[in-house]
């Protein structure tokens, strides 16, 4: 096939760029998930995820989720 090298280089470079992009997105997702889980493990939670507390306790859970 004439100019086979140019065609192959086009498709390979496209696959490489898309692959790097997909890998970056996957790693970024894992990083954010891990950071979120670490925060929640330390008791820092969003309002919707915060455990229910009796009304007489401090306002800590409110502050965390604002």
């Amino acid at each position: 096939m004439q100019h086979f090298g140019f065609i192959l280089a086009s498709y390979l470079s496209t696959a490489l760029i898309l692959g790097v992009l997909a890998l970056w997105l996957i790693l970024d997702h894992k990083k954010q998930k891990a950071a979120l889980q670490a925060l929640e493990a330390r008791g820092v939670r969003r309002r919707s995820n915060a455990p229910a507390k009796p009304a007489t306790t401090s306002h800590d859970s409110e502050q965390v989720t604002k």
Partner: protein
Amino acid sequence: MNWFNDFANPTRFLNLSAKLLPWLWGLAALILIPGFYMAFFIAPEDYQQGQTIRIMFIHVPFAWLAMATYALMAISSIGTLVWKHPLADVSAKAAAPLGAAFALICLLTGSFWGKPMWGAWWVWDARLTSMLVLFLMYLGLIALWNAVEDPIRAGKAAAVLTLVGSINLPIIKFSVDWWNTLHQPASVFRFDGPTIHISMLIPLLLTAAGMTLLFLALHLIAMRNEILRRRVRTLRLLEASRAVEA
């Protein structure tokens, strides 16, 4: 506009996008497989460009996508500045690296196509130069988002810059008509209809549709990541403020 407001809730968006993603991947594969099969085994070689026409089936869709991504960012920027939609600047920020990647693919594949056909890897032609400007604008916007720590302030600044930069889109589209360029004129989106033969047009449209679905899937993932990043930032700030109060 109810659906528009429904998307204002990031948690609802995360749930909906998680359901949509497998469908987008599946549909993209369903369209891309026959598209590339036709591109390689059914579409004939071009009478002038020979087998290098196969490069068109990735070069052209990514050129369209690089421009469409910027158009999406411009619409998102209006959403940020006018409607203050909570997901508008998330959408714009998430789209920028994808647009940069698509513009880079367009430039690289164009170069691999240009060398055997024009005898040069690069020429300072109006179409090529305006596409290079688009790529540099993507990089500039990514740098701006990373330079400003507060995502709301960064989003507003980037929205203004994105809207100013959108002037480049008609320049890219009509550069081949306004200037005497080496790049060939439009052969698909023309007022008098496509000039490309149906045997090449169908695989081209299939690969373009499949890659558009691929873009939508990648964009949803990038948006989900950005929402998580902002949650992490908010929780870290709250944790720090609690530590100061304690």
